[in-house]
C-alpha cells in the first residue's frame, strides 16, 4: 500500500507546515496589531504577575465561563481536559524510549476518550436543544463538532474494538519524524482517524480554533490595571500626536 503511505506522509508534512505557518502568521499579526487603549475587564490585576495568574486561571479552569454558565463550563472543561490527557498519552507514539511520565498518563489517557465523547456530545446536544444556541450555530460549528467526534470515536474504536497494529503505526510516525519513511499500517479506521487529524490541523489556523492563541492576546484579559500610573500609547497614536502638535 505504497499509495496510502505516500498520501499520509505527504499529508502530514503539508499539514504540519501549514499549521505552523498559519498559526505563526496569526500570532505575528496579533502581536503586531497595537491595542490603542487600556481596556482590561475590571476588576483586573495591578501587576504583570497578576495578569499571568488571571490567564492561567482562564486557561486551566475556564474561570469566566464558570461564572457564566455551569453546564457549558462542565462540558467544555471536561472535553478540553480530556483532550489534553489523550494528546499527552499519544506522545508514546512519538518518543522512543517512551518518557516515563507519559507512561504514567497512559491509564488516564485511555479513558479520557470517553470523557471527550461525553463532553462533545453534550455540547452538540446543547447546540440542537437550547433555542438560543441553536440560533447562533452555523454549519461550521456543527462540522467542527463532527470532526472532533470523528477523531475521538475512531480512536476509541482502535483502542477498544478493532485494535490497530500499534507497533507498525509507531514505526510510521517515528519514520516521519526522522525522515526515514516507513509503511503506514493498512487499517481503514486508522486511515479515518489520521485523515481527520490532518483536516483538523489544516483548518486550525483559519477557523474558530484560533480561540486558543486568541485568549492570550485578548486585551480585556491580558492588560494590567495601571492606566493612571503608566502612560499607554500605541505606535499609530504616537504618530498622530506628533503630527497634531
Amino acid at each position, binding site marked *: 500500500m505504497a499509495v496510502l503511505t505516500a498520501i499520509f506522509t505527504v499529508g502530514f508534512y503539508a499539514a504540519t507546515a501549514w499549521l505552523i505557518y498559519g498559526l505563526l502568521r496569526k500570532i505575528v499579526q*496579533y502581536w503586531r496589531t497595537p491595542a490603542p487603549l487600556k*481596556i482590561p475587564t475590571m476588576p483586573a490585576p495591578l501587576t504583570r504577575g497578576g495578569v499571568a495568574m488571571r490567564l492561567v486561571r482562564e486557561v486551566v479552569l475556564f474561570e469566566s*465561563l464558570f461564572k*457564566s454558565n455551569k453546564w457549558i463550563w462542565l462540558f467544555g472543561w471536561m472535553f478540553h481536559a480530556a483532550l489534553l490527557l489523550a494528546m499527552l498519552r499519544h506522545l508514546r507514539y512519538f518518543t522512543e524510549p517512551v518518557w516515563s511520565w507519559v507512561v504514567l498518563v497512559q491509564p488516564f489517557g485511555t479513558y479520557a476518550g470517553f470523557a471527550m465523547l461525553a463532553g462533545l456530545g453534550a455540547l452538540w446536544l446543547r447546540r440542537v436543544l437550547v433555542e438560543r444556541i441553536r440560533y447562533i450555530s452555523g454549519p461550521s460549528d456543527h462540522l467542527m463538532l463532527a470532526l472532533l467526534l470523528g477523531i475521538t470515536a475512531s480512536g476509541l474504536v482502535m483502542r477498544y474494538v478493532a485494535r490497530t497494529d500499534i507497533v507498525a503505526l509507531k514505526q510510521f510516525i517515528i519514520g516521519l519524524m526522522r525522515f526515514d519513511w516507513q509503511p503506514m499500517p493498512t487499517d481503514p479506521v486508522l486511515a479515518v482517524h489520521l485523515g481527520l487529524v490532518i483536516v483538523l490541523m489544516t483548518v486550525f489556523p*483559519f477557523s474558530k480554533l484560533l480561540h486558543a492563541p486568541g485568549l492570550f*492576546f485578548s486585551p480585556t484579559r491580558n492588560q494590567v490595571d495601571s492606566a*493612571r500610573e503608566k502612560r499607554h500609547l*500605541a505606535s499609530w497614536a504616537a504618530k498622530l500626536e506628533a503630527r497634531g502638535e
Partner: protein
Amino acid sequence: MGDYKVPELTEFTEIPALQEGAMSHSHPYLAAPEHQEPLGFPGELVEDWHDRAIARFGELLDKSRALRVYLDSCVRCGACTDKCHYFLGTGDPKNMPVARQDLMRKVYRRHFTFAGKWLPWLVGAEDLTEEVLDDWYSYFHQCSQCRRCSVYCPYGIDTAELSMAARDIMDHIGKGQKYCNEIIGKVHTIGNNLGLPGPALADTLEGLEEDIEDETGVKVRLPLDEKGAEILLVTPSADFFAEPHVDGLMGYAKVFHQAGVSWTISSYASEAANFAMFIGSYEQMREIALRIRKAALDLGVKRLVFGECGHAWRVAYSFLNTLAGPWDFLDQKYPIPQHICEFTYDLIQKGALKFDKSANDDMTLTFHDSCNVARATRMGGVPGGQFEIPRAIARAVCNNFVDMAPDSIREGTYCCGGGGGLLTDDLMELRVKGAKPRMDALNQVVQTDGVTHMIAICAICKSQFSKVFPEYGMGMDRVVSLHQLVSNAIILDGQTTDEDDDETKAGAAPTETEE
C-alpha cells in the same frame, strides 16, 4: 413614545423565548450633514459606501488588536447569550452579544478571511449589503457598550469594542447617529454636551451658592475659571441643573469646602462626558480630552477631580493618560485623575468629615453599580475599590442601606439601559425594555427590604432612571446622587442646625449594617 408594552417585572430576570425581529424597527435618528461634517465625517451616505466601509474596516483591523482577536476568537459557545440586558428585555435574538457580534463578524469573514472568501456558506460569511448595513445601524445602536458580556466570555470578547468600531465605520460612510454626533459638535464649539455657555454656567453656579447658604447658613463657593485653584473639577454638565444630578454637585462643593481646598470648574472644559467613546473615534475622543488638559494648564491647577459619571470616569481613569497625558505638571502625590468618591472617601477615612446620618433616615437605599465604573475603571488602590468605596460612603452617610441581588451588582451589574450614546428619546422603547433586569432586581429589594431610593454615580444612569422609573410605576425622584446623600448628611463648620453636637458623630467607620 411608540406603542410598546412595558415589560412585567419578575422575581428573577427570566431568559425570554426568542422573538426574531422584535426590535428590528428600533434605530436612532440619522445624523444630518450639520452634525456629521464638523466632525470630519461625510454629511450623508456616500455613493461608494460599500467600498469605503470595507476600507475603513481594514484600517481599524490594523489599528486595534481587540477588534482583530475578537472577530477571530468566538466559538459560539453561548456563554454570553443570556447576559445582555437588551436581550433579556426584548427577546430579540440579535441582541444576544454573540449574534450582535456576528453581524460584523460575517462581513469580516467575507472580506478579510480565507474561509469566508472561498467557503462563505460554511462559515456564515456575508457581503455588506444594504440590509446588513441597516441591521448594523439598528443593532449596534442597541448595545450600550456596558461590557457585561465581556465578563462572562471565556476569551474576554468585548462587544463594546465591536459596536464602537461598527459605529466608526458607519460615521465614515455618512451614516452617523444624530444624538452622539450633535453632542460632540457642541463640546467642540461650546465646551459641554448641553451647549451651556460660560455666562449661563456662572449664573447657575451662583444660584447654587445661594441655595446652599439659604439651607445651611454657610457660604460655600462654586468657583468658575478661578486661576491658581488647587483642584480642577470636571463633571458631567448634567450636574449643573438636571435632577438629581445637581444635588450631587452641591455635595461635591460642600466636601471641597469642608476639606478646605481651593477648587474650580472650567467653562472651557465644562464637561466630563466624552461621547466620542461611544462612536469609537479615538481622534474625537482625544480632541475632547485635550480640552481638559488645556483648562488644567491655563488655570494652573495641581489636581484633577472628576464628578459622578460612568463613561466619563472610564475615559478619565483608563484613557486620559493615553489621550491627553503625560500629566507631569500636576501634583504627583495624588492619583491623576481622581474620582470625587475617592476624594470624599479619603476624607472620611481621616475623620475629616462630620455627618448627621439621620438626615437620610427618610430613605432606605440601595446602590446601582454603573457599568462603566464597575467593569472599566477602578477607585482607590485595590481592585474592586470601585464597588467598595461608593458603598462605604453610602454607609457613612445613611443608616439604611441594602444591596440588590449579587448577580445584578458589582462586576455583574446591569446597565441602566441608557448608556453608550442611547440616552435619547428616539430610543425610548429600547431604554424602557433594556432597564428590565435592573428594575427586576430593584423591585425585589423594594418588596423585601422596603428600599425607597436607588443611588447612582453616573449622569446617564440618573437621567435614564428618572425617565424609566415612571414607566414601571415608580416615582422619578427615586434615583439619587451619592453626593446628594453626602450633601444631606454633612455638617459644615458653622452650620446653623436645630439640633447640635450630640446627634453629630464623625462618619469615620461604618459601624452597623452587614459586611
